[in-house]
């Protein structure tokens, strides 16, 4: 093989063949051009610029001024609020993502066993996913209003004093998790499709062998749907790292105030910074305080963390494809 390659390299390539190869390459490049242009303009260029800005002081209007690692130093040592945002985002990754996956999987598994009216239940569970996040969050904040919301009114009728939900730093994030569970339709539908795709003969063989339900899940269902679970975990973690809209709307509505005097940084995170997420803080620094250099440093770190999480999850889960070993 090596000899053949050497011989091929050494021998002169006829001119018509060279021209054909060039044409072929240009044709391929022409077909790839839209993607290459999109990748360069909308991903690589912004990424390079963000990396550059992260080493500068930049306020959008004046030219960036190189300050070396000072933005990163500020992140590590002088910005206490960013660490609150990091903790909140980590909490969402650790609690919200698994909660949504477990709940979504549970609902899907129940739906696979429904004999009649499965279509109706599938529709009912999927419908919340169609609600715009802003509208859904608004509705949730009003439903969970501690004083007038139907949830606490209902709890009071059975003798339970409901918490302050979105107005209590201890309950605001759990309330956001409930909102996430309510909108489980997107995960539910792909889990359901994956569950329905598990070969029935494997279940039949297991039934003949007399396996218990847990063993059936552990040795048949789980290996078969693992690629989809991995997909759900990766996209869920990335979404949690970028969690913004629901937390912003909840904070703004629950605080009951407009932004007067102070910047938006005092409303985002209400109450007491408990719903302040990392992307929100990035937004505040970039577009409320106009510290674009520092915001770029935050964006670079977020990107790095997202990549690391994705790589770890993919490696742990052996990518999206089930292997012989995983199905064994």
């Amino acid at each position, binding site marked *: 093989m090596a000899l053949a390659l050497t011989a091929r390299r050494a021998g002169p390539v006829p001119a018509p063949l060279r021209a054909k190869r060039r044409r072929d390459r240009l044709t391929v490049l022409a077909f790839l051009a839209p993607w290459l242009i999109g990748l360069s303009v909308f991903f690589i260029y912004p990424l390079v610029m963000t990396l550059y800005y992260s080493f500068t002081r930049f306020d959008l209007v004046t030219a960036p001024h190189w300050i070396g690692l000072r933005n990163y130093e500020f992140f590590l040592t002088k910005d206490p609020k960013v660490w609150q945002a990091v903790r909140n985002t980590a909490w969402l990754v650790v609690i919200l993502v698994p909660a949504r996956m477990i709940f979504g999987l549970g609902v899907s598994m129940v739906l696979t066993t429904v004999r009649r009216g499965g279509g109706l239940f599938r529709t009912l569970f999927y419908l919340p996913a169609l609600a715009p996040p802003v509208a859904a969050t608004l509705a949730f904040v009003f439903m969970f209003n501690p004083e007038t919301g139907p949830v606490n009114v209902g709890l009071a009728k059975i003798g339970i004093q409901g918490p302050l939900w979105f107005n209590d730093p201890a309950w605001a994030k759990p309330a956001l998790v409930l909102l996430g569970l309510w909108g489980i339709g997107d995960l539910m539908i792909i889990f359901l499709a994956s569950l329905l795709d598990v070969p029935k003969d494997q279940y039949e063989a297991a039934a003949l062998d007399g396996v218990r339900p847990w063993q059936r899940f552990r040795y048949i269902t789980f290996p078969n749907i693992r690629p989809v679970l991995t997909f759900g975990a990766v996209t869920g973690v990335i979404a949690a790292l970028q969690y913004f809209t629901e937390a912003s709307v909840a904070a703004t509505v629950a*605080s009951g105030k407009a932004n007067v005097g*102070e910047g938006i940084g005092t409303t985002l995170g209400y109450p007491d910074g408990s719903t302040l997420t990392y992307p929100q803080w990035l937004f505040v620094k970039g577009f409320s*305080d106009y510290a674009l250099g520092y915001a770029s440093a935050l964006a670079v770190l977020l990107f790095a963390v997202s990549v690391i999480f994705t790589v770890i999850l993919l490696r742990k889960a052996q990518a999206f494809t089930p292997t012989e070993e995983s199905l064994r």
Partner: protein
Amino acid sequence: MKRQRFFATLGAGLALATVAACTGSSTAAPSVPPSPTAKVTGTVEFWHFFTGREEAAIKTAVADFHTKYPDITVNVHGGQDDEKMLKAIAAGQPIDLALSSTTDRAGKFCQSGAFKDLKGYIDRDKLDLTQFPDAVLAYTQFNGVRCTLPMLSDVYGLYYNKAMLAAAGVNEPPKTLGELTALAKKLTVLNPDGSIKVAGFVPLMGWYENAPAHFAPSYGSKWLNADATSAIGGDPTWQEMAKWQKDLVDYYGVDKLTKFTSGLGQEFSADNAFEKGKVAMVIDGEYRSAFVTAEAPTLPYATAPFPTGDNHTDLYGGGYITGNIMGIGKGSTNPEAAWLLMKYLTTDTDAMVKLANSIKNVPTTKAALSSPKLEADANYTTFLKIFADPHSSTTPASPTGSQYQDTMADFFTKWQTGKVSDLQAALNDVDKQINDALALATGP
């Protein structure tokens, strides 16, 4: 090899684009425009933040301008906040005239060059700056660079429900915060389960217009030193304010207050708690009277200067002042026409009075303040007096915008929920955070 060459070319292109982008912008030098030799004509792109009822008033003012200068057409873009305006200016969009709702960003606008330095225009046209009150002049410039002019202001004072006070046998509004505390307790009504039905005064910082900036004039509290570093930790009046506020929060209980406020309507809605009679006294701006007229015309209310700290009774009569500021965008393509419109909206007495009458903001020129055309009932007159009072003050401009106020607001959030054990240490930490942010924004 070819692949390597392709990626090398792509990399070089990106690097070139990066360098080009990094060197493309620079700080705009102050411009000194010559006198226009020809009649000023053309189009002005005017961006402002007003919406709804208030936007209609702006459009009327602009229509009046067009009647006066028919050769100038104004395209009005309402509902544009500072963030959108700054992004548009940075992107090179030709915003000729921009109106910001807050003085907090004057430092940013002037220092960054987002708004043009107006000195050339002011000198050339011999614009008399003494027509503006001193406090207003202070918040429209930064470090000697005047890049904005004031167009109407907001003044803060006390709104109180006359019927509730009368029912408690009180006919005069409180003048000190000690009196306000006593009255608030007297006016508070509890439900049988102990929850709050009607609050005399809600002291929670962050609720409606309760902000450190709005209470600061009651104590004469100092925000920043001349070099924009924090003066908070070294000013004992901040501790006085914090203790007064916490005492009243503790009287109600922070959980009870939070539950109560969560059930109240949004601030800028017809369900506003003061308009609904759920709160007897609030701190608010002069604009509230226009909302009351529109949304709760039968509400028996009156206004007064906000009470002062018990040891600062000499400050009574003053209050917090802020306002709208107007500047010519860095990339303006018709700055002469923009300057004409700016002068009209900020210095023409009739135009300003007409706007003030519609929006119920306080005019920002002395002539407009004393104009007989200014419709001023007793409640509105209170704010005109506060505006003219020498003890009124505003928040200083800083290169970090409103960050120092945000930091203080964060402190109060922790303080009022009992998470601060050492007040002085916490205020020193506020100083450190503000100074660190300043160093990042302006350091070498």
